[in-house]
């Protein structure tokens, strides 16, 4: 993965050094006070949040995330922020978007936000996906909310001239999210599901091998589950293609300060020496061959 470049979605915002004693230029992360444009249910469990955001937030890269200051609601008083992957950024419209599952105190609070409300979105933070230069074919493998994390990568890779094959897995066809959105950004979408057994991991690996035979992948990506991670480790070695995985862990600060969000990693691919790395700061996207299941 030498020769790779982190993905710049657009140039960093130009900030007037004069207004802040010359330090502004260093400030690439902020507590962005965003305005809620919409916050609608996608299905029974997921909501789609669209925010009007200031320039620092718009510099977010695929795979990066924000740490959201979820509002209290009733007896829910979230104390820490909650990490949420970028689902979509539109620098022209000054918007950032999230796709989230409502499950606990934080996301229940998020779900109460009405258009016009203010949300403090801390970020962008984290190391996103690293697209090899002149990438021609990228695999995106995702299930459930994992999609939120992968969508910006798909969009970006297409914009950079690569073909994107997105394999979306779900319990049933009805539960697949963002299929239309991914098609609209130009990805080739394959839906697999549990009902007809097409989401079986052997079947997915077969699909990947077939597509690779047609046009070799330069990058394999996934997020979340151990099952997909193991598949990508196998496929990456077999096909000799770099593989990256976006991980999650409970977080404190999301700024590399508290060391709460660590997971174990191999010091290098194949190494037996293990070391903890911070998901928020060293990731959330990691080389799949250095990642271990948990």
């Amino acid at each position, binding site marked *: 993965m030498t020769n790779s470049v982190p993905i710049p979605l657009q140039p960093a915002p130009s900030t007037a050094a004069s207004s802040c004693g010359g330090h502004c230029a260093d400030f690439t992360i902020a507590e962005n006070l965003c305005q809620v444009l919409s916050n609608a249910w996608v299905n029974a469990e997921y909501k789609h949040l669209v925010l009007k955001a200031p320039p620092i937030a718009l510099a977010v890269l695929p795979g990066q995330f924000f740490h959201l200051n979820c509002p209290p609601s009733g007896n829910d008083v*979230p104390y*820490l922020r909650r990490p949420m992957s970028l689902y979509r950024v539109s620098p022209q419209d000054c918007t950032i978007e999230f796709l989230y599952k409502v499950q606990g105190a934080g996301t229940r609070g998020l779900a109460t936000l009405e258009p016009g409300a203010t949300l403090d979105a801390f970020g962008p933070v984290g190391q996103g996906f690293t697209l090899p230069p002149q990438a021609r074919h990228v695999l995106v493998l995702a299930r459930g909310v994992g999609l939120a994390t992968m969508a910006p990568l798909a969009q970006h890779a297409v914009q950079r001239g690569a073909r994107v094959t997105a394999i979306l897995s779900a319990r049933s066809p009805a539960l697949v999210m963002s299929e239309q959105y991914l098609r609209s950004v130009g990805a080739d979408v394959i839906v697999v599901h549990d009902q007809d057994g097409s989401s079986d991991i052997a079947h997915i690996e077969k699909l990947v091998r077939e597509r690779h035979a047609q046009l070799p992948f330069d990058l394999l990506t996934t997020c979340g589950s151990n099952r997909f991670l193991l598949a990508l480790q196998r496929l990456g070695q077999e096909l000799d293609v770099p593989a990256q995985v976006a991980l999650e862990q409970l977080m404190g600060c999301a700024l590399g*300060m508290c060391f709460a969000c660590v997971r174990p990693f191999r010091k290098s691919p194949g190494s037996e020496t293990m070391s903890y790395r911070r998901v928020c700061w060293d990731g959330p996207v990691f080389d799949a061959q250095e990642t271990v299941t948990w």
Partner: protein
Amino acid sequence: MVDMSVSIGKLTLQNPVMPGSGTFAEGMAKVIDLNGLGAIVTKTITSDLREGNTPPRVAELRNSTLFSIGIPSKGPEHYLEELVPFYRNYTPPLVASISANTVEEFGELAARLSVPGVAAIEANISCPNLKKDGQAFGMDPQATEAVIKAMKRNTDLQVWAKLSPNVGSIAVIARAAEQGGADALVSSNAILAMAIDIESHQPKVANLMGGITGSATKPILLRMAYQAAQAVSIPVIGCGGIATAEDAIEYLLAGCTAVQVGTANFISTSAMPRVIDDLQAYCVRRGITRIRDLVGAMKVHEAKLLEARAGL
């Protein structure tokens, strides 16, 4: 104009606000202007390299958090080569926090870190003493005094002792640290706590116990800081549950010369700048010209004996 400066011995801080060890790192420089802080305190390091505790390392509680990090440490080399140069780009004094398994190691590590660019060394004595059944140094007055003495022998820098709240009498430990030659005390580290998931029956942090930090602990740690300040004549730096200027003022009134902000940094990176601004605004509103006039300015209630009330 309000004079916001405070003195810790010969060290003058432009204002009394600094981060608590382990709740601040280089990332903060990408978000706020570090030059606005009273001092910079770094995460505790040890001489040996350590990975820290098994995750999960954090659980959210009501108005507080349960952290069980351990002391992951990249060692003194990394500190001298990476962190000291990094923080040399900023003006506030740098305070290096250290921990060790033995009294001697505390002394050696203090010597090792006594380089230009480091202003003071904070001893995190909440860690277990390998030579004394693993009881924390900070729970034992003799061990506390010995650690501080060993450090003072090995460095000309200021030595701060960060006390553990998990003691019966913090005054006893505070006096032991002063006796050992500490230039200041930090009161205090996190309170030992636990939480259990009632569905899985497992502890919420893998290490079973962790430190409870954040707002909910303030009334307890404020009491401890007050008791420490009453017990010694060196400056006490208050720490525990500080998120707002109001919190900081309580600690100042209770006798603390400065304050450390911990968990609040995770909730809002602007916590420290806001505490500083709001402290100044409070002073302006109350006509206080020097913030140090607040230190120890608490007014206890007159003891009104019940019998005396009969005359009223």
